[in-house]
């Protein structure tokens, strides 16, 4: 679930959307935002989690991203635990623009 004070279980990732373009992003190991989830930092280290939290809040205040929240990660697969978040990582399974190759 979207929780900021991550009450979540297991490894955590931090996610948000870019303010300008709206795309989903995750914090990577350098605490920069990436559109590529495979580069996302996934950790149980509470110090790191605190730093992620701080970084996300700072960037939200700096108007780089909106809607920051932690997501639970499945330790076995490294993927988000919730179905919605798994889905968000991949983008739409269908998009008319892709089917027709128009953009």
């Amino acid at each position, binding site marked *: 679930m979207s929780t900021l004070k991550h009450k979540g279980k297991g490894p955590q990732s931090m996610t948000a959307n870019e303010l*300008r*373009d*709206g795309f989903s992003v995750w914090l990577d190991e350098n605490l920069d935002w990436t559109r590529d989830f495979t580069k996302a930092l996934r950790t149980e280290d509470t110090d790191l989690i605190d730093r992620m939290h701080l970084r996300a809040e700072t960037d*939200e205040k700096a108007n780089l991203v909106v809607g920051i929240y932690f997501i639970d990660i499945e330790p076995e697969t490294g993927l988000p635990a919730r179905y919605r978040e798994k889905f968000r990582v991949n983008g739409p399974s269908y998009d008319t*623009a892709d089917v*027709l190759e128009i953009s």
Partner: protein
Amino acid sequence: MYRYDEFDAQLVADRTRQFRGQVERRLAGRLSEAEFRPLRLMNGLYLQLHAYMLRVAVPYGTLNSEQFRMLAHLAEKYDRGYGHVTTRQNMQFNWPKLPDVPDMLDDLASVQMHAIQTSGNCIRNVTCDPYAGATAEEVEDPRPMAELIRQWSTLHPEFTFLPRKFKIAVTAAEKDRALIKAHDIGIQIIRNAAGDIGYKIYVGGGLGRTPIIGQVLREFLPKGELLAYLTAALRVYNRYGRRDNKYKARIKILVQETGIETFTEQVEAEYATIDISDISVSDAERERIASYFAAPDFETLENDPKAFTDALQVNNAFSLWANNNVAAHKAAGYAIVNISLKPKELAPGDITAAQMRDVSDMADTYSFGELRSTHQQNLVLPHVKQSDLLALFTELQAAGLAADNINLITDIICCPGMDFCALATARSIPISQAIAERFADPERQRTIGEMQIKISGCINACGHHHVGHIGILGLEKAGVEFYQIKLGGDASEHAEIGKVTGPGFSQEELIDGIENMVDLYLKQREAGERFLDTYRRIGIAPFKEVLYA
């Protein structure tokens, strides 16, 4: 045709300019997201699962070719080359970028369009029979009345912060193509025994997590009293509607909890306190608005011209399309043409920029420059000469818009679901595609006859699944999508909420199950029965049997 009057033009211009400033301040960090969010929603801009989404209002589903070309321009310049027609007759763009949105709104304003009232707890965009002004079934064109409501409700100070959003639908025909009984208020223009035109008012309908069919609030309201009466109804709602719980805040819950008799008494009591002359609209004003919708200059023609009937004889594809997609027009020699946005390969309701331009050209050539969007997520060219139908059909074929499946099993209503929507619990587009694939054979579709399948990706029911002959609701449990089936829903003037069959299905089971139910219907049906009729006659049990076999 809807056009702003000066008040609107000023308002939209002010709004667009304000919003440009707000976006600039947001991007510069002078507005926080908490401050900005309500402002962007007021201008139709949502943040979805993967990106922003802009919802453009199409008042009562009426568009001219110039406006549709502008939507094509937006799709191409600022989005990914296509748009999506919604069940509220609006158009959504799935991939706009925040800095572009003020330009998009400016472009829209240049053709008298906007995205106001597509969000928020206000009176939303009024929806309407897409055949308005064209069908012989109507008492009169309902759009002037829809426009009157729009002008009255736009930023109405008393009704800008209702307990919850408020949706009004209107029709002037007995045959309901606007789903008026599933709206907060539904209005049917009728003629009483004395021959006077007035309004039958329904209240308290809605879909969403608590689906309810609207009930009659007033059997006959004289013509001049509409706005005063709506004011009374909205005041009662504003006063007693629940603000403590957003799931109980719609007027349908208030009507249900109060009971229709008491609710009606409350409205009538409030109405008695209103000085009708304060709010009533003068005949002159009504005529001014009606003049925007003046019928085009129809030629004096005969029905069934030879060119048309000959073409029906020799051109089988044309004949199948004309039989299924074309409806009777009030003017002799004309026809109403439905353009299906449900080709097998694409998501229901999606249309490319190139196709939007093609349809705009066709509207100019064949339909007085007019077109409509429908809550079934299709388009309509309202005024086509029968003698032009073959030429139009040929152009539609070239544009990939000649699917002859209107009202058939592949004419599916489908919300964006998890592929785009932040609130979804499951995908809906792949389900509609799997059904379209399974029933691809056009001959089989025609054998099955009228069938309305409607799919929503969560309980908000944007895909109208409660009123589908077969309704499908996407849910998720432990990371797996599954789909619940409802049977026997009806979106027509005989509106009804479908019944849940029982536990849900995986996608494969679902498609097999639908096929089994269709086969059962084909075996059991009596002459002239649609799926829905057979279901009503034999009941849910035999269908459950083949579903859960």
